[in-house]
């Protein structure tokens, strides 16, 4: 089927049999909401579609619904996600395996509807599992995987699947839909065994603790769930491959890094372009590879540390920034590699913010620039803003 990323995502939700869907419209996410409303209206999806007055409420409704044991889905973008921020902590703190699609949109001001990943990366401390995908097919498949990861009793944390607005959300690609019967086997009905609201069993969820008696214990439980997710994500990916024949690499996907001297590390739609660049440069004899980072939370610290041990130089190409510090992925990578025996040089390219187009030639140029620097002891200007007019 030819589908936009948004529709591919909506089909993923439908096939995953979500039961409660509270969504508030925001560009570029709105098509997901519209398509799901369409499914519900036409009886193709047996779910409660809840119209709400804000994203904050959308997530509040999702929390309440999920707390009764219903499989819940919501979606948002940019400012909407930021508006949800408070409730993101509640969802994870109550250990509710909600799945949300984040269709990335750069944050205002200045306002834009075009993407970068800052909106989602900004939510890194909310204890949500975060996975970044690169195309419509992956968005479609990852909704199903996300439920299986989230509902895994070792994890029990909400999962956000992020893909870039416009670039992925609005452009059509061929998508192979999951088979419903196969998916029902892969993703059985949600049967929670942890606390669930029921009229027969009155209890208080997310209650205030007036003393500090359990706050840290609950927080540590979440940390443990996130630790488990490091194992569960690749396991689910492998299980998915066995059923559907498609595989995304779990925490991250690697390409031609076995003998690579330089690795380009990126996330989201940039991975597609970068992959093409790597293939082309390999043909020119350059020892270059790709890491497509998929899981940002949990951050695969140890896994990346091991795989990058003998690489000379890693360039982090990212469509996001933490002003005053650098690229957000870059920062996380620095902390992951600190103290390793043979750490690579790290160069950070901040590019494509607010949806600025990044072409094959752009990435190819970056790759060649980095390749020349690979044997240095250290690099000047490790954090580089790419193609800012007036900046040389």
């Amino acid at each position, binding site marked *: 089927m030819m589908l936009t990323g948004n529709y591919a995502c909506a089909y993923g939700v439908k096939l995953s049999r979500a039961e409660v869907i509270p969504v508030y419209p925001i560009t570029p996410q709105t098509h997901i909401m519209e398509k799901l409303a369409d499914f519900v209206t036409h009886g193709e999806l047996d779910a409660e579609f809840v119209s709400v007055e804000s994203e904050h409420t959308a997530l509040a409704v999702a929390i309440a619904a999920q707390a009764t044991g219903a499989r819940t889905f919501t979606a948002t973008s940019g400012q909407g996600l930021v508006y949800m921020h408070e409730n993101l902590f509640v969802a994870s703190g109550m*250990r509710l395996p909600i799945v949300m699609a984040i269709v990335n949109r750069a944050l205002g001001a200045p306002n834009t509807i075009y993407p970068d990943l800052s909106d989602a990366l900004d939510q890194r401390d909310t204890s949500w599992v975060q996975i970044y995908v690169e195309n419509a097919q992956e968005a479609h498949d990852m909704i199903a995987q996300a439920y299986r990861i989230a509902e895994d009793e070792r994890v029990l944390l909400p999962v956000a699947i992020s893909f870039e607005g416009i670039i992925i959300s609005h452009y059509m690609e061929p998508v192979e839909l999951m088979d419903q019967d196969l998916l029902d086997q892969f993703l059985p009905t949600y049967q929670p065994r942890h606390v669930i609201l029921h009229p027969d069993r009155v209890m208080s969820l997310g209650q*205030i603790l007036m003393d500090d*008696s*359990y706050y840290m*214990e609950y927080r540590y439980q979440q940390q443990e769930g996130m630790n488990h997710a490091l194992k569960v994500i690749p396991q689910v990916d492998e299980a998915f491959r066995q059923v559907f024949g498609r595989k995304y690499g779990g925490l991250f996907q690697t390409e031609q890094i076995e003998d690579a001297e330089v690795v380009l590390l990126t996330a989201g739609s940039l991975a597609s372009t970068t992959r093409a660049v790597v293939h082309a440069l390999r043909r020119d004899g350059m020892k270059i590879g790709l890491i497509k980072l998929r899981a940002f939370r949990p951050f695969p610290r140890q896994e990346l540390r091991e795989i990058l041990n003998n690489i000379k130089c890693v360039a982090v190409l990212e469509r996001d920034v933490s002003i005053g510090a650098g690229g957000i992925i870059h920062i996380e990578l620095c902390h992951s590699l600190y103290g390793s025996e043979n750490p690579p040089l790290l160069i950070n390219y901040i590019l494509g913010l607010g949806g600025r187009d990044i072409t094959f030639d752009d990435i190819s140029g970056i790759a060649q620039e980095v390749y020349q620097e690979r044997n240095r002891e250290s690099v000047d200007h490790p954090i580089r803003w790419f193609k800012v007019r007036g900046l040389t």
Partner: protein
Amino acid sequence: MADLKASGPDVLRLYDYKELPIGAVAIGIDPFGRKTGLWRYHRPEMVEKIPPCQEGCPLGNWIQPLIREIANENFEEAWDILKLENPFSGVCGRVCSHLCDEACNRKELGGSISIKGLERFLADHFWDKPSHPVQPQKAQKKEIAVLGSGPAGMACAYFLALMGYGVTVFESKKSLGGIPRIGIPDYRLPKKILEKEIKDILSMGVEARTGCHVGKDISIGEILKFDGVFLSTGAHVEQPLGIPGENLNGVFRGWDFLQKCNLKQIPPLGKKILVIGGGNVAMDVARSLIRLGHQPIIIYRRTRQEMPAFFEEVEEAMEEGTEFHFLLAPVAIHRRKKKGLRLECSRMKLRGMDESGRPMPVPAKGPHRYFEADQVIIATGERADLSYLPEEFKRQNGSVWINPWGQTSVPHVFSGGDMTDTPRTVAHAISSAKRAAIAMDQFFKGNDFIKLTPIQTMREYLGLNNHRVEYIPEIVKPQDLHLAYCKPREIPVSHKLPLDQRQRSFKEVNKRLSSEEVIREAQQCLSCGVCKLCSHCYLFCPDGAVQLSPEGDRYLINYDYCKGCNICQNECPVGAIHVRPEKED
């Protein structure tokens, strides 16, 4: 394991993180959660306040529940509620000025609810079904004489009969009814309506002696021998203008003229007729003249704003073609040489206020104005005839003196209606009668009531006024309502006879609304100050502390959980939630 802990953890030991039930269940506290009510500084309370319509109604009709019952299509309940306070809903539904409509908070929000239309509808709808608002009480061994059978007298008889008293009504005229019978034209009040409502009162065991003039056919001494007496002989004595020529041939009195109209004994009249005065009698005279094919011209010494006639009456008189001249005071009436009369008027202007608080007309400069006409009708008010009362009855400003309960200076004699100092409307007359009936009941039972605030309604006196929640006697103003929830008003409906027919016949001008129309009308009531179970408080309460009562007739607040955020008050469309500071310990 997790289930067990979730429903009843052992509060005496501290669990380690592996043992804690997953999902941030609060351990060691009531499974119903923390009693957040402890945090409260302000206490919202469900209350009932006074809707302005009810306060506006001079006779104390129980309007709010009446409208609610109509909105719920319970016409019979509405009918009983209406009849409890007023035996003349058919008359009032037509001729009352409906101060309730004026007071309605909807007035500036698309238009008042037509309470008049609802009242009229019920009276017409239950034409053949007398209401029994309350079981008449057991017979009392007291006999009461009522003098005069106007709205005050008949209403007093009605309320006394409801309370079990024997009542005899004395009426000097041949038929019962007072002003509504002899003074109000048919186009406003068809006589069969009045007759039917009087018949209903008589069917309660009230006796009536018509054609019985006190002083001629029975002495006042005989009357005063009754256990109790209610005086309601009205005000029928025309007051002279005190100008030359007012006794000329061709000069009539308004009140006298209306009586003749109702008795179909109209004197021969010319084309052009001057009507002096700005009250309801003047309007009735002018509009009757139009229907009889004459051309009335109204002369009034103040302006349109100061006219004592009901607003609607003046509007309709204008529509029908009455000519109005303002700020003119009659000085003399002259006979013209050949035929007809000439009215001489001085010009007036408004300066300062008179005793009644109305702008005072004073002579203005300028030549006198003259109006020529075939006849002149003077309709400038009447006064009470108190000549039949012995001297022991205290008088005040030409009226009988009464205390706040309607009691005269003779203890067993009470009075009401136009012969007392009260606004001369049917509603005020009925109100004064009701108050006196209640006072008489207390008087006979030997209660010490004089110093108490007078009780104005039967529901209060009979203890039927059981509020579902705490009652706060405050009148609800528009700013007490949440107007964002006020739905737009549908265009108010009214059905009037076409103008050309009005100008030709005495057929009733206003027609009744349909059942569908009154239900729609009632459903647009804002229910000021009275909960209408809209459930906003229930839906908005962040603590789930608002619950429907087991009877389902009101919402209750669970103060164990109410934090006092007052969102319920903020979201209440009708202003029926009151917030008080929480008392300190």
